[in-house]
């Protein structure tokens, strides 16, 4: 693995390796001293062309826990706002010796351009590009799903497992969602069944070949007793002239996870949300704050997943010690 650009690029064994490595990383994070020496001397640049404090902090924490040097490069506070191109920014980072660039960009495909341009030699890690992909979000979702549905519910050590037979429902603005695109690909690769639920205006034209089912009826899908429900953020600005739905109230009535729908979920089902939430629009407080909500845990798992991704991209070739070296809690295999 040279770059992490798209969830669809991962084979099942690569995805399982990342999840297993995440488990090893998460175990180290329960120790008193959380910092590992693994990426000492390496430089990770967080290149954020789009505001996202949550994702940036998650990557920054992950890199620092692995002892990497971290540079935060925010487009708003840099010369990009004065018109510097992606190319010049990349050449600058290359000159500064970045070993990995974590890029967040509002343009779909920007990380691919960066990785294939020849402007820089470091690893490129996609932290969300436009309405295209957000692979580490899908990985942390998969990790969370596996921990609960395979590990805690199934009573087995989930290491080595996929998500075979699990039914995950993703509800909301599929059209504009990089989280949905990444999850459809990754969860399918891991053996899960995925159902997308949205009003027809928020389902992309051309969705037919996607490895999932599509429904316009949330209540009907709840009849199938899914194992997990993932609610996506709905942006209120999508309602303007020529809008995608008539009103917040109508959206909430048809597609919100309110108390009534939440009560219909099977006992073992978990509730997820990539955040930030619009309480009262796509999700009610009853669902978000319930014991079956894993929304806060998703955030914590995000750090472990990003540690695993950085570790596999930068140290996977075997030129750095695995996490915790001598006291390594789980063997890391297939890291490539």
């Amino acid at each position, binding site marked *: 693995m040279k770059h992490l650009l798209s969830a669809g690029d991962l084979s099942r064994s690569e995805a399982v390796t990342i999840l297993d490595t995440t488990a090893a990383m998460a175990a180290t994070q329960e120790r008193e001293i959380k910092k590992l020496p693994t990426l000492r001397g390496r430089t990770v640049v967080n290149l954020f062309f789009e505001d996202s404090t949550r994702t940036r902090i998650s990557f920054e924490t992950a890199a620092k826990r692995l002892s990497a040097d971290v540079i935060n490069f925010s487009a708003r506070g840099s010369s990009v706002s004065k018109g510097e*191109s992606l190319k010049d920014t990349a050449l600058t980072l290359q000159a500064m010796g970045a070993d990995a660039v974590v890029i967040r960009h509002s343009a779909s*495909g920007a990380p*691919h*351009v960066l990785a294939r341009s020849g402007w820089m030699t470091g690893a490129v890690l996609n932290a969300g590009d436009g309405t295209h992909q957000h692979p580490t979000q899908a990985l942390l979702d998969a990790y969370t799903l596996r921990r609960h549905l395979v590990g805690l519910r199934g009573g087995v050590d989930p290491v080595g497992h996929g998500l075979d037979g699990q039914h995950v429902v993703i509800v909301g603005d599929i059209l504009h969602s990089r989280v949905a695109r990444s999850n459809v690909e990754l969860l399918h690769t891991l053996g899960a069944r995925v159902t997308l639920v949205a009003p027809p205006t928020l389902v*992309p034209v*051309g969705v037919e070949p*996607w490895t999932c089912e599509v429904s316009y009826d949330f209540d009907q899908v709840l009849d199938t007793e899914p194992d997990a429900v993932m609610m996506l953020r709905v942006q209120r600005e999508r309602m303007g002239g*020529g809008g995608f739905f008539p009103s917040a109230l109508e959206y909430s009535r048809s597609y919100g996870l309110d108390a009534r729908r939440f009560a219909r979920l099977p006992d073992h089902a978990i509730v997820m949300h990539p955040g930030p939430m619009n309480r009262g629009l796509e999700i009610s407080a009853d669902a978000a704050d319930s014991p079956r909500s894993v929304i806060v845990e998703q955030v914590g798992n995000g750090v472990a997943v990003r540690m695993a991704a950085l570790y596999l991209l930068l140290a996977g070739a075997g030129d750095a010690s695995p996490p915790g070296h001598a006291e390594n809690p789980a063997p890391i295999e297939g890291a490539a």
Partner: protein
Amino acid sequence: MTTYLLTGARVLGEAPTDVLIADGKIAALGSDLTQGAEAADAARDAQRIEAEGLVLLPGLVDLHTHLREPGREDAETVASGTRAAALGGFTCVHAMANTSPVADTAGVVEQVWRLGRDAGYADVRPVGAVTVGLAGEQLAELGAMAQSAAAVRVFSDDGRCVADPVVMRRALEYAKAFDAVIAQHAQEPRLTATAQMHEGVVSAELGLAGWPAVAEEAIIARDVLLAEHVGSRLHVLHLSTAGSVEIVRWAKTRGIDVTAEATPHHLYLTDELVRSYDPVFKVNPPLRTEADVEAVRAGLADGTIDVVGTDHAPHPREDKDCEWAAAAFGMTGLETALSVVQAAMVETGRMTWADVARVMSFEPARIGRVADQGRPIAVGEPANLTLVDPDARRVVVPQEQATASMNSPFGGMELPGRVVATFLHGRPTVLDGRLVEGR
């Protein structure tokens, strides 16, 4: 003026013939001209060009070229663009109006026309804007441009659609006074406000905002009905979808005076290429699906589509060396058009070289009302000619092209055919595949 004797050229791909070019005209045609009576002296003194195995076509005419001058000389100039045209086998190009300033006055179109005449590599016929500043609101002075030295007969806001139905109706009606044609860039603006690529399976996966086929088809349907209502000529630029082919076919059956254009890239490339996120494949209208390419090829072969126009759209490197959404729309095409048509239409058995002459020379000249271009290859006709080696194959190298820009989507691809010589009014602009300098 030097006389030239092409020996053994296959006129429109037919049996070998000698062609004598003298005083800007085709002076004689026939087998073994050096042996004949009258023409013999001239033929014996002429510069011989061995044309055995080569196909002779009328000089190609492009109804759709962006020469970028005035205003964007960093992308192309009239001089560099017409040199590229000559190398591509063109003897006449129509320069689109979206320059800076916009070609919406007699002054600007005359400037472009003079720059073309001074460069001397192809006849430059300026296209006038339909509306002032391409804003789609007020008709530009079409009459003044038609009556200027540039004698404009094609008007277009290309790059933008004349979206207002009333403005389009008036333009179609008004242009009748000077036998001009309105060439429409069919793109419903509201349906394509943020569009980045063809809307379909690939856009859904790539997360790029879609440019739906219906945004093109809805405007074409409206415009053919408007043209019928007011009894005017309509030309549809760069038609790209299967549905558009169907609508134009229907309109022609109904007797509506409509002509249509396809570009080489819409005959050869699909939206699958966008998966690379390489902006060299970003173009407007966008690359469509394989089914659309097939329908456009069928439409060109059966005459529904009348012409191939290059939509040669040069851009400086910085406008393509970036993320997809930030990149400019457009591809260069003058130096690859004939090769792409050969690959897509001739080598697939769908068209003969006579058909190529029709869609790349005769019909464009007729639609643009260019009197001395797109003429038959016959004695006494102007010697605007293109000599092609159909058996050659070449790999396209954008850095080696004469256009000032490098945004060719065919870079690295192997294409058939090579332009060996181009004659403009009896003088060679290209010989042995190279530009003739010092014209």
